[in-house]
């Protein structure tokens, strides 16, 4: 893991104006950075704004306020260089939860995985493309027979593998995965997580892993940020967060993680946190590397 930040947000705000009087503050001033080669987990319950963060980072939304830095250079606002943005679009890839919606149902697997070449207008010979295609298929554990299939003919796990192959096609430096395993069966989920882990070790890319399931995030991430109502309430190294959670909301989330142990489960007390009582403006470093909203 390097010391340099690959992507950083500073006071990022993403508001959606629904009507004259009603504005949804989906992301409300968050600042964090992902180091090169780091797996960064972002957790929170539905509606906390974690998907909006993913979309802002990939440039789908234009931030209301604040800035996003890629490789230490701003890619939002007036001062952003077009070349840098282009560069970022090439090097940052996304994987979404719903693989059925993320893949064009009328394109074959082969076309889908080769599409990044076409979109980025990369000049690559037929031979080279084919070679890379087969390499990616092997990498994600799909046999060649799937190349001519349509997404509708694949299972959820296989479709997610196609999404991963497509995201890896251009050797990305950062992969943003928004709930990539949430809609999969437990056994298939385990297959995909191990795949992510292997690919991340081999490809050395940075990884923003967004999920609501804490045990999944714990297994894969180096560092975790907990989000609530558009704000990050706590950031810490994974084990530090699990051993020593400081924010009451983090404690409540951790208390709700399932353990496959009936005797323990029946006696487990679940803590509740009234999300309306959330207060605090800024993240402060309370312990080395452990930040808390105060």
């Amino acid at each position, binding site marked *: 893991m390097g010391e340099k930040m690959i992507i950083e947000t500073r006071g990022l705000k993403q508001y959606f104006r629904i009507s004259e009087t009603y504005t949804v503050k989906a992301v409300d001033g968050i600042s964090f950075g992902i180091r090169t080669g780091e797996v960064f987990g972002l957790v929170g319950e539905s509606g906390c704004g974690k998907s909006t963060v993913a979309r802002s980072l990939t440039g789908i939304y234009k931030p209301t306020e604040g800035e996003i830095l890629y490789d230490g250079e701003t890619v939002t606002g007036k001062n952003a260089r077009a070349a840098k943005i282009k560069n970022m679009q090439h090097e940052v890839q996304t994987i979404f939860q719903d693989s059925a919606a993320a893949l064009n149902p009328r394109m074959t697997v082969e076309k889908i995985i080769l599409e990044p070449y076409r979109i980025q207008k990369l000049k690559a010979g037929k031979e080279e493309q084919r070679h890379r295609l087969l390499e990616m298929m092997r990498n994600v554990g799909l046999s060649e027979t799937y190349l001519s299939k349509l997404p509708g003919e694949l299972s959820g796990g296989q479709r997610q593998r196609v999404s991963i192959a497509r995201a890896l096609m251009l050797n990305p430096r950062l992969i943003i995965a928004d709930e990539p395993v949430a809609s999969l069966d437990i056994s298939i989920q385990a297959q995909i997580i191990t795949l992510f882990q292997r690919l991340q070790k081999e490809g050395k890319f940075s990884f923003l892993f967004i999920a609501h399931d804490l045990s999944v995030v714990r297994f894969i991430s180096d560092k975790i940020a907990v989000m609530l109502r558009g704000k990050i309430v706590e950031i810490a190294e994974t084990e530090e967060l699990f051993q020593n959670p400081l924010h009451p909301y983090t404690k409540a989330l951790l208390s709700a993680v399932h353990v*496959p142990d009936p005797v*323990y489960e029946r006696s487990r007390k679940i803590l509740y946190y009234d999300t309306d009582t959330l207060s605090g403006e800024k993240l402060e470093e309370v312990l080395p590397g452990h930040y808390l909203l105060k």
Partner: protein
Amino acid sequence: MAEEVLRLENLAISFDTGKGEVEAVRGVDLTVNKGEILCVVGESGCGKTVMCQSVMHLLPRYSRVKHGRMIVCGEDITHYSERQMRQIRGRCMSMVFQDPLTTLNPTIPIGKQITEAILKHEKISGEEAKKRALELLELVEIEDAENRINLQPHFFSGGMRQRCVLAVALASRPRILFADEATTALDVTVEAKILDLLTDIRKKTGISIVFISHDLGTVARIADRVAVMYAGKIVELGTAEEIFYDPRHPYTWGLLSSLPALAAETGELHYLPGMPPSLLDPPKGDAFAERNQYAMRIDYEEMPPMFKISETHYAATWLLDPRAPKIESPICLKPGSGLWAKK
């Protein structure tokens, strides 16, 4: 002897499709006792939903009961007509589905949706029905029920909607409740609350609950007994303690070891390779053989019978045959530790 409310005898359900016969459920024997929470666990496509929907007679026309019987509250309902089923549904059993938004009618206030269910089954006045509806909303722990009874579903959060669906399902005082992935779409904290609510309702009303899930971690909190399903068959059945602390079937081992909660403790995430077999043309032997690292030759040739381990614990794997090599379960959990330890 506990009172039986549901009994399935060698039940098999098939779908006649354009490609041929899909054997979704292939001979299931199961009983549900009064006041018990039975959890059915398995991957998607293993037949757990089809099994429950067949008992409710909710399957499409191209499905059929190939053989076997289903007995609900002492009545054999296998070949009941739609008219007869209408007497059974609601009164004897009801069902809660995964997505509360598609279950509720978005245009009708939830109070009316509950009274509708009550009035269908009982001859009481509208006033009384409304009172019952309020009681039900309080039973499912909706705060400030009096003011909320006239609101449409979109005013409610996902967890509260699921509570409303539960209230509708409980309106006619059923004896069995099928909950089909009822908490899968909810956030973890909300999920935990709904699970606690289910145990609470069971305590208050003595209802039996059949809880379907793909996640063994979820069911640990509520299950009295667990049935593990694979490729249309029950492969292991036992009390929660037996399934979690003394699993015998390699598929149960696989399901348990692919839980990330365990992996975070051991640092290793195991997974079952491959996919479940197609039920269009199910394999001759043990359907799990292809993915089973302990598979023996007989697994490919003959289906294993249910071996009895204790009065309550059964598993269908040739590993339990006296002639098979002794294989220790790769996972071992000490009760109550909350932690997993590898042997």
